[in-house]
């Protein structure tokens, strides 16, 4: 895992040094393309996994629960932050 993060920071450095070079500007598109490949592979792993396929509906429900938790938590925190620090300025 250390090496993955190191790879990312190497990328940050390369991107920063080569800023303005045309291929660097295309890196966003390249990220999307690689993500597609990656997700195809991830899907393939899941599709080949009979046990996982059988529990797909339970997985969907758990995912909904996680999404609701993340949204609630972040929205509550943002309301607190806004009231504490920013509201006075707007008034």
């Amino acid at each position, binding site marked *: 895992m250390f090496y993955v993060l190191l790879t990312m920071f190497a990328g940050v450095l390369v991107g920063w040094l080569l*800023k303005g070079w045309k291929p660097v500007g295309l890196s966003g598109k390249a990220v999307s393309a690689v993500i597609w490949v990656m997700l*195809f592979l991830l899907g393939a792993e899941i*599709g*080949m996994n009979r046990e996982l396929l059988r529990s797909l509906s339970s997985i*969907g429900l758990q995912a909904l629960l996680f999404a609701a938790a993340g949204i609630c938590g972040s929205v509550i925190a943002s309301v607190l932050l806004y009231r504490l620090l920013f509201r006075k300025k707007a008034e």
Partner: protein
Amino acid sequence: MKGTLTVLAMFALGCISGALGILPQSLADGGLAKIVLYLLMFLVGVNIGGNPELKKIFGSVDPKLLLLPLASVFGTLAVTALVSLVLPGWGIADCLAVGSGMGYYSLSSILISEYRQMALGAQLAAELSTIALLSNVFRELFTLVASPFLARKFGPFAPIASAGATAMDVSLPVILRSSGDSFLAAAVISGVICDFSVPLLVSFFCSLP
């Protein structure tokens, strides 16, 4: 939105071709996925480092705005940790790894499937990464649909917080429409910082026992 649909379509295509058994069995162990992961992380880095707006975006902004992504991340993690009480199958570290995806579904699910194997075994890690993928997709879709409501009811920061890492790209247009154009810097800063936190936090929580 179109990007999200493409991503879901690729994922579904992979699932279906995997289930039909038309792919070589060697794909099932994730060796190729690991190589592609390195490529992906490098490109994510290049994309962040090479952003010509990077300095401009961070140069002239109210430093207090940096608290917004922190609030968004901490709020997410605090409530997501509670999910482990409801779903006894997952430990706190598992739940936090899913939560710290911050809407960046592709990267978080990929990282979890690779790095949670040590603690959970391949089967449960695959299950958790599928949960991470879907929950972060749901979060993005919810933000896209509900931003006007969130802004009206909970203030202009709410859609940005809910968007997480997607505040700077996919969700940006709907945030500007809901919260107002003056929140551009807040949204982009929050998105960039959340984006950056995803690989760090997901891999950190995956490394916990």
